[in-house]
């Protein structure tokens, strides 16, 4: 009975990774090269022809679902780190600048 309960929880938890269907731990295959495909008219090709780029979501899902303990706001690596550091520098610098400005603003007006 305990095994049955555990199984129910397991399937429920796996269902929780629904989104576009990429499950953790399942390696995704890269798409086959399509350079050899002859040119088609849009009406012949149907819905499979490209319109404004290819779907890179499965690649991004793989990237963001790696179990490396990195928080979401840094998970893309260098660009995230740069933007975070810039933002934090402005936050701390700005807060200090604000306190100084408020200190001077609070001084009585000597006439």
């Amino acid at each position, binding site marked *: 009975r305990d095994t049955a309960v555990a199984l129910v929880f397991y399937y429920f*938890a796996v269902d929780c990774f*629904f989104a576009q269907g990429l499950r953790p731990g399942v390696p995704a295959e890269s798409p086959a090269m399509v350079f050899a495909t002859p040119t088609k008219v849009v009406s012949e090709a149907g819905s499979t022809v490209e319109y404004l780029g290819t779907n890179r979501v499965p690649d991004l899902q793989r990237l*963001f679902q790696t179990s490396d303990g990195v928080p*979401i706001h840094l998970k893309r690596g260098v660009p995230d780190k740069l933007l975070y550091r810039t933002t*934090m520098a402005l936050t701390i610098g700005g807060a200090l600048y604000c306190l100084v400005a408020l200190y001077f603003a609070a001084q009585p007006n000597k006439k």
Partner: protein
Amino acid sequence: MAHQAHAYHMVDPSPWPLTGAIAALLMTSGLAVWFHFHSTTLMILGTILLLLTMFQWWRDVVREGTFQGHHTPPVQKGLRYGMILFITSEVFFFLGFFWAFYHSSLAPTPELGGCWPPTGITTLDPFEVPLLNTAVLLASGVTVTWAHHSIMEGERKQAIQSLTLTIALGFYFTFLQAMEYYEAPFTIADGVYGSTFFVATGFHGLHVIIGSMFLAVCLLRQIHFHFTSEHHFGFEAAAWYWHFVDVVWLFLYISIYWWGS
């Protein structure tokens, strides 16, 4: 391999609430410093920090939902409640300005000439540009609904086209309204008429710009395949907000432009 035995979203630690709070501090103190010491540095710094916070926070929400799958049905329900409550708070925000308008216009004081519109005010003809603006926003309501149905039916190209058209109509409204503001025969300083007119329509225009930005982000996400026919709450939230903006305009048009002229 399961990491959690429930469907709810336990978020990673994030610095954005702190940076957002500091941004609010800098913007408000910056406003005071601008008024008293004529320096805009602090206020501009606060605004930049706010923009950085919004960009990164919402980028993270997209990553958590679309790329990590955290937006399960119960989580999405919470997001829906959240958006509905936010729009409700915005309704109350506008209610205040409509209250101010009706307070002044239903019982015009002797200082105004005892009439509404007040003596000396040349109002805008409601059947010229304001009527066009009404048509533009109503049309954009149709195109955003078309975009929604296209997304639900998996029609990628139509979704992109109708969403682009919606955004274009939003920009057209903003452009027309900006021209009206420039050409208007009265200003915000022209008594209570000017105050109520420009504050109410001004905040509305700001919301049109915000709504257009929200829709533009949805367009980018649609182009990048983020939305599925079953799951596209970001778009639905944008569409709700857009309809809200449209409805506020209809009330503005009927009350201030038409009845108030």
